[in-house]
């Protein structure tokens, strides 16, 4: 157990025992050292199982809208913006949430890691050593430079010192530098993108894991895509229909998506969805000069209308 | 040092050389480098487009293409700047003219240059403070009628500069040079262009209207910014006096010549006539004297005012003291009454 985890557990136990919250949402150890799993700590015993390491990839704010109790939530700096975005939309009540910000040194991208050292399903131990990730598989320690296997999002992290939280645990770490997982050619035009997405979405099995893992996709059960009446997405399983679903989702989360990449990490088919959302996000930033998750008192830009925007559009 | 492409135009090579030299001298002095557009050709002026609009745009566009490697263009001649501006608007979209240019081996990149008249460029320089500290001998007291003519500000959709009915940029420039711009009625009236050769009577009438208006406004000098205006206004004043009732001759110069004079530049580059240089001196002396007198009068008035103020204050003080005395007496009697009632 590292020092950070000690502090986390201490804080969680304090909150629980004082009765300030009924649960602390954090991460626990999953079935494999490289797999953290969300953990709802409701007492001292479970709170002692809380962990935090570079494998805690889940965005926990996805649970907040469906809870009706006062909870504490552990959050990485970047994903705190999800909470802000939910607050902005009035989906959650600030009084019901105690936000524990965690200093984060970067989260491992399992895809990058497996590309570097092979399958890690059978890992027996995983740890960070200096600047590299060490995974022990079958008694053999496999190493990969941390910067090479860190999530793309972490490479451009600028949230370290402005985490939206009630309490911050740990010291801000240095932002790793490394290469993006997928480099879009500079001259990528519509045709390139069309071909690219046609190939990627061909894999989609429409399990909707992306949607369910997304904090902005809180419609969940009522998602327009699965509407029984108006069939926005047809029954066939092909890239076209999948694109319709993903494009519809991208439009629906436009201006609300923090581009955390939870959808991409949830995808059992490894479809690079963050790319899609980043593109839509860029458009939102450009058109509305709006950064999602920055302010809790402004509704998402596509949900209201300013007269100046009409004037700007020249109509 | 900021660099502009410089497009002199045909007249500045010949009949209006002093405009050319004064523009170069003035801009050089304020730290703007003018790079002559290599192998420039005529802009087409107001005649070419009457024959064929596309051809006119093409020959003007050639100059834009040649300038695009240097940067924004300064074209001192109003007619040139207008022709180039018009062509530039045409060239911003992909059309037949751009194709003709390409076929002849000239390429214009949309948005690569913008065209400025000398007035526009000088006005921008004034706005950004480039003239600060550069005016060594201000043209104090000199009453200047700024004459814009047609093409500096018209048609407004193409000129995109100043108010087409009451432009003020040249007046501001003249103020900066220490001169006194006069309000007058014919700032933007047409001088007849090159039509002196076509319809003399008409042009002379137009010119006389302008000159008479300037004289009526009691201007010392007319500042112009166009070689054609200059020729029309300056060269036929003797005829005007004879036939069109012009009361007196009035010097007409390029506005850059006046700025140059205010900056103390060598008159060999400015080409101002001795009469005008003398007039400038005379006006300056008069103005300095007038200002001195004004200052003294003001000081005297201030002193008188101060004295009045002091007297009034003393009077008020006395009155107040008297009142306070009265009220304290009243108060004390009031307390007494209250005490008794208690």
């Amino acid at each position, binding site marked *: 157990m590292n020092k950070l985890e000690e502090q986390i557990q201490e804080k969680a136990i304090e909150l629980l025992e004082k009765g300030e919250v009924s649960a602390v949402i954090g991460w626990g150890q999953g079935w494999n050292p490289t797999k953290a799993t969300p953990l709802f700590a409701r007492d001292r015993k479970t709170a002692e199982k809380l962990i935090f390491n570079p494998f805690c990839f889940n965005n926990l704010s996805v649970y907040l809208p469906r809870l009706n109790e006062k909870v504490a939530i552990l959050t990485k700096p970047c994903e705190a913006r999800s909470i802000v975005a939910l607050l902005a939309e009035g989906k959650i009540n600030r009084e019901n949430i105690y936000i524990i910000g965690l200093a984060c040194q970067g989260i491992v991208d399992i895809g990058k890691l497996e590309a570097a050292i092979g399958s890690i399903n059978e890992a027996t131990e995983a740890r960070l050593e200096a600047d590299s990730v060490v995974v022990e598989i079958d008694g053999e320690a496999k190493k990969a430079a941390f910067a090479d296997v860190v999530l793309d999002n972490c490479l451009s992290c600028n949230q370290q010192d402005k985490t939206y939280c009630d309490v911050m645990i740990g010291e801000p770490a240095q932002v790793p530098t490394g290469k993006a997982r997928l480099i879009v050619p500079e001259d990528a035009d519509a045709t390139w993108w069309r071909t690219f997405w046609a190939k990627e979405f061909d894999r989609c099995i429409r399990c909707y894991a992306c949607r369910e893992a997304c904090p902005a996709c809180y*419609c969940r059960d*009522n998602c327009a895509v699965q509407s029984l009446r*108006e069939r926005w997405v047809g029954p066939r399983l092909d890239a076209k229909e999948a694109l319709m679903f993903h494009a519809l989702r991208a439009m629906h989360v436009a201006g609300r998506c923090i581009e955390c990449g939870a959808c991409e990490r949830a995808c059992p088919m490894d479809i690079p969805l963050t790319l899609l959302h980043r593109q839509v996000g860029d458009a939102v930033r450009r058109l509305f000069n709006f950064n999602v998750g920055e302010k809790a008192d402004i*509704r998402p830009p596509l*949900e209201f209308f300013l007269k100046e925007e009409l004037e700007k559009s020249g109509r | 040092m900021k660099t502009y492409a410089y497009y002199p135009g045909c007249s500045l090579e010949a009949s209006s050389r002093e405009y050319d030299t004064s523009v170069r001298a003035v801009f050089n002095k304020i730290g703007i480098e003018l790079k002559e557009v290599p192998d420039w050709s005529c802009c087409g002026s107001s005649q070419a487009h009457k024959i064929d609009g596309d051809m006119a745009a093409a020959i003007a566009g050639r100059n834009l293409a040649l300038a695009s490697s240097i940067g924004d263009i300064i074209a001192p001649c109003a007619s040139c700047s207008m022709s180039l501006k018009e062509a530039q608007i045409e060239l911003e979209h992909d059309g037949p003219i751009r194709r003709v240019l390409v076929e002849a081996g000239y390429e214009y990149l949309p948005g690569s240059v913008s065209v400025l008249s000398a007035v526009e460029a000088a006005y921008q320089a004034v706005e950004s403070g480039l003239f600060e500290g550069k005016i060594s001998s201000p043209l104090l007291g000199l009453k200047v009628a700024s004459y814009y003519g047609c093409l500096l500000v018209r048609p407004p959709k193409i000129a995109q500069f100043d108010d087409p009915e*009451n432009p003020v940029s040249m007046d501001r420039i003249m103020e900066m040079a220490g001169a006194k711009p006069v309000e007058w*009625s014919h700032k933007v009236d047409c001088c007849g262009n090159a039509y002196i050769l076509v319809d003399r009577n008409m042009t002379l009438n137009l010119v006389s209207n302008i000159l008479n208006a300037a004289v009526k406004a009691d201007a010392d000098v007319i500042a112009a910014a166009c070689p054609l205006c200059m020729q029309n206004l300056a060269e036929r004043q003797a005829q005007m006096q004879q036939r069109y009732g012009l009361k007196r001759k009035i010097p007409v110069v390029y506005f850059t010549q006046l700025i140059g004079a205010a900056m103390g530049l060598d008159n060999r580059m400015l080409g101002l006539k001795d009469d005008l240089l003398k007039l400038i001196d005379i006006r300056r002396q008069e103005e300095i004297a007038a200002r001195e007198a004004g200052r003294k009068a003001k000081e005297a008035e201030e002193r008188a005012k101060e004295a009045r103020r002091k007297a009034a204050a003393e009077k008020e003080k006395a009155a107040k003291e008297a009142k306070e005395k009265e009220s304290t007496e009243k108060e004390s009697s009031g307390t007494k009454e209250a005490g008794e009632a208690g």
Partner: protein
Amino acid sequence: MARVGVFICHCGSNIAGKVDVEAVARESASIPGVAYSSHNKYSCSEAGQKTIIDAIKENRLDRVVIGACSPKMHENTFRNTIRQAGLNPYMLEIANLREHVSWVTEDRDAATRKALDLVRSAVGKVAFAKPLTPGKVPVEKRALIIGGGIAGIQAALDIAGMGYEVVLVEREPSIGGRMAQLDKTFPTLDCSACILSPRMVDVAQNPNIRLLSYSEVESVGGYVGNFDVVIRKKARYVNESKCTGCLECVSKCPVRKIPNEFENGKAMRRAIYVPFAQSVPKVPVIDKNHCQYLLSPDPSTIEVKEGERKPRRRCGACKIVCGQDAIDFEQQDEFIKEKFGAIVLATGFNPFDHSKYGEYGAGRIPDVITALDFERMVNSSGPTEGKILRPSNGEKPQRVVFIQCVGSRDEAKGVPYCSRICCMFTAKQAILTREKLPDAEVFVFYMDIRAAGKGYEEFVRRAQMEYGAEYIRGRVSRVYESDGRLIVKAADTLAGLPVEMEADLVVLATGSVAREDAFELASAIGITTDSYGFISEVHPKLKPVEIPREGVFACGACLSPRDIPDTVATAGAVAAKVGILFSKDFLESDPMVAEIDPFKCAACGACVAVCPYSAITMEEFRGKKFAKVNEAMCQGCGTCTAACRPGAAQLKGQTDEQILRSVEAVLQW
């Protein structure tokens, strides 16, 4: 399976002339779901309606598509028709074969094909229609009138005359509006004040009218019959109930050099003032931007060192002289919340700002004045006490030139419309000039004379023939000063002569423009404006005073430029409309409103944020939050349905499903 009946109307030759209606009726029969189809010469006629009713009964039809004219025209007619046949009136869809097809299509075959497509689309849509029932809402029988000009005054008096309560809100310290600024009125040359003042007094004395002057409407919520309005009563700093209107305070105010808005800035007023002599209410207002007392710092907020005296407020002369102790510097803006059943907009117009006319000096030449300046000048209570004088030197002008169409019929200046009143007021002003200055010459430059109105043409002719105003046809190109006089450059286009004329006074007949600042509440009230900013009516001919938000009406020049008779007429019309509304105790609400499926609602609140009528609120039921539409407030605009991501918000009668089916029906063939 639905049993749809399709009825194609010839509309005489309106539709049948371009569309093969028989073919459309024949082909329609094969559209899935269609159980019956026919065509008829005039479906809206009594006989035509009877055919429809009979066909419905005979063929057991349960929904109907009518291919005819615009639903704007006859949707209600046909709803009643099918109601008579025993169907729910909303099981109807109209395919607009006239405006959308026959009137706009040249080719007969193409028109027929398009007509059939529209019928298919309507069938596709109506197949998913559901019976709808209107709701009932009570009516609050009080009217709010915004704007106290002649329009607002007239509407207030008329509505109050019917026995209903009226609140009249005026942003200025006095009612009266533009009409109060005028000297005489055309074509009768009545004194404007003489006919207006009695009405203003009536307003003040009418027990059914509550006048809130110096007040503005802050927000409007609610819906027809039940508007919730917040009115800001701006601090007047004078207690209205104590003030007797003696105006002693005004005469003692030392701040004297404030341009008087009522005099168009051409005379001065004080910091405490009434706008004009006949002001109603005759209670002065302190202008907090100029009052020395209010501008000087509040001593209680100033910290001073020990031993130093606190500075005192400056002035306060008005408070000292007021015998009634009516001056109250502590007054604050007051917010009044009221409920109303109807709202009347009577916000008037603004004169065109002639600074856009550089060729006429753009306001820099003192002797070039506007028509409103002239009205005040020629008025005996105006700045020159009724004398026509040159502002530059106070001398009588020898020649007065009027220029018409300044800020009218000028697309380049953004006002392509005709302001309608300028021809007439120019003639009036020409007459007044000749009356007051018999020696002066009067010239009027015009483009066309538009004198349609009772006695109007005669009035203009009188100006020319009796009063000797010289009319010259041609737009003035330029006005400039020369040697202390004005030079007017124009052309007499009829004679073909250039005109260069000296003048002493030029009066610009400035047109009317919309008062856009009056509608900061626009979206809340539901106002839509035309491209010039004038309020759009629902229908220029048939609903000239209704605006798209139900229960809100407009009259006077806020709708478009108009003269006093028209303004008064529309005010009367509005009163009648309000009367009709108030004659019922309950209103039927349009059932084609939004509804939110609580099962589908994700409670994101996007609909609440976008609803322009604040008709949606968040509710909670058994721990689940969801959005709910107040059907009476909903105007059926559909904004929420567009914002709703899970598709929970649906417009009844226009559900996503219906729209998709109708689109699909067009696309499948």
